[in-house]
């Protein structure tokens, strides 16, 4: 079994037995959506823009929590040291951590989309299928960024607070593109009509998956 599969399987098993991350992600997504329903008073008017925006706010906050959780598990008992001592190169470790974060985010997003449809009086129709690739692109970019940055913030004072401060400004381009594309998709526009936004998200994903893959060794290693 490859190192990638071993680490991913470990993280998934840990999650299946405790359910900690996905439950927390789902709960937080729901709370963010509830807060925004009241804040925007969106329950009375059928507002696609507000629904798309709320979905992405939920995704960013839930994603941040998930990234913090994933690293917390490794930090307890210095479990990360064990991973670093194993003959596993940091880039593979990054890929496995990214895959795990992505799976947790995907589960939370499915939940968030269902809640969004219910809370914002939308319909379960074909527009949700068009939403899927947009959310997937956003989740890949965000997971890559958060996995890289949480390795940094996890080892500073007040790290849990620092992660959003570092991650959100960097995530802005994908956020703008994601919200715009999602609103268009909910309004029934075909994917082809939002090519520019999708290109920005793809560029963001390629950049941060590559950057994380190459730079992870510099942030995860111990001091020599």
């Amino acid at each position, binding site marked *: 079994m490859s190192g990638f599969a071993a680490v991913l399987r470990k993280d998934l098993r840990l999650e299946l037995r405790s359910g900690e991350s996905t439950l927390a992600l789902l709960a937080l997504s729901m709370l963010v959506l509830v807060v925004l329903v009241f804040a925007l008073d969106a329950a009375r008017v059928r507002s696609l823009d507000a629904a798309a925006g709320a979905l992405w706010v939920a995704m960013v906050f839930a994603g941040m929590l998930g990234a913090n959780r994933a690293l917390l598990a490794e930090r307890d008992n210095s479990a990360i040291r064990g991973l670093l001592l194993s003959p596993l190169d940091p880039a593979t470790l990054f890929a496995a951590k990214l895959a795990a974060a992505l799976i947790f985010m995907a589960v939370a997003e499915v939940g968030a989309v269902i809640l969004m449809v219910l809370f914002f009086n939308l319909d379960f129709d074909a527009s949700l299928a068009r939403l899927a690739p947009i959310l997937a692109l956003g989740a890949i970019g965000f997971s890559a*960024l958060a996995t*890289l*940055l949480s390795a*940094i*913030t996890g*080892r*500073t*004072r*007040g*790290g849990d607070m*620092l992660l959003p*401060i*570092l991650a*959100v*400004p*960097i995530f*802005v*381009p*994908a956020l*703008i*593109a994601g919200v*715009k594309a999602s609103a268009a998709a909910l309004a029934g526009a075909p994917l082809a009509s939002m090519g*520019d*936004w999708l290109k*920005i998200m793809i*560029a*963001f994903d390629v*950049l*941060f998956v590559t*950057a994380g893959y190459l*730079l992870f060794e*510099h*942030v995860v*290693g*111990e*001091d*020599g």
Partner: protein
Amino acid sequence: MNNSAIRNWLGFSTLALMLAALFMVFDYVPPEAEQGIAQLIFYFHVPLAWVAFASFGLVAIAGIFYLWLGDRLWDDLGYAAAETGMVFCTLVIVTGSIWAKPIWGTWWTWDSRLTTTFILWLMYGGYLMLRASADDTPQTARFAAVLGVVAALDVPIVIASVRLWRTIHPAVLVTKQGGHGLEDPRMVATLLVSLAAFTALWAWLLWLRFKQLRTRSRMRALAVRIAFASAAASDGR
């Protein structure tokens, strides 16, 4: 040239250029016809923006060299550049707001360049917060270098996305049918002198902060050596 010679040279050229720039802005250059006196802040705003963006570029370059070579010198340079860049970036936003109030009728608007600058400001604010919330170790230096590189990589995508989002910022001034807005040759001259003055000011501040951080790094290294030496001496006894 030794350190104090460079420092003095940079300081005095900053002083001379800054006095020249002030004279040109307030006494020599004609204000733009439509905007009147408010337009004069342009001669501060544009040079400030240039040095702010140059500093952030330098943070990324220093980060790459630090990750590549591992020399503390690059970390100190990146830190100094981030701090000076943050000061100038704040001033860019402040001078822009002061100009925008009479001309656009609002302190702030979510135009593409304003938004990009603000996001840059947030990113480097995060960079400085990271440095403030971690001890000064090689690990922190690596973290900062990675963040500096990642933030710089993000900038082109930020620009592309925000431009697609919206834009109303004037290209130089209000562009009138192809002209670049600086009709009078005195305007070009003033802008160039002002650019030189702010570049000198930037280089001077950067140099001072960089040398200060270098000294701090060297003192830390010395303290470690003294600790080792005294430990070895007490072992020998």
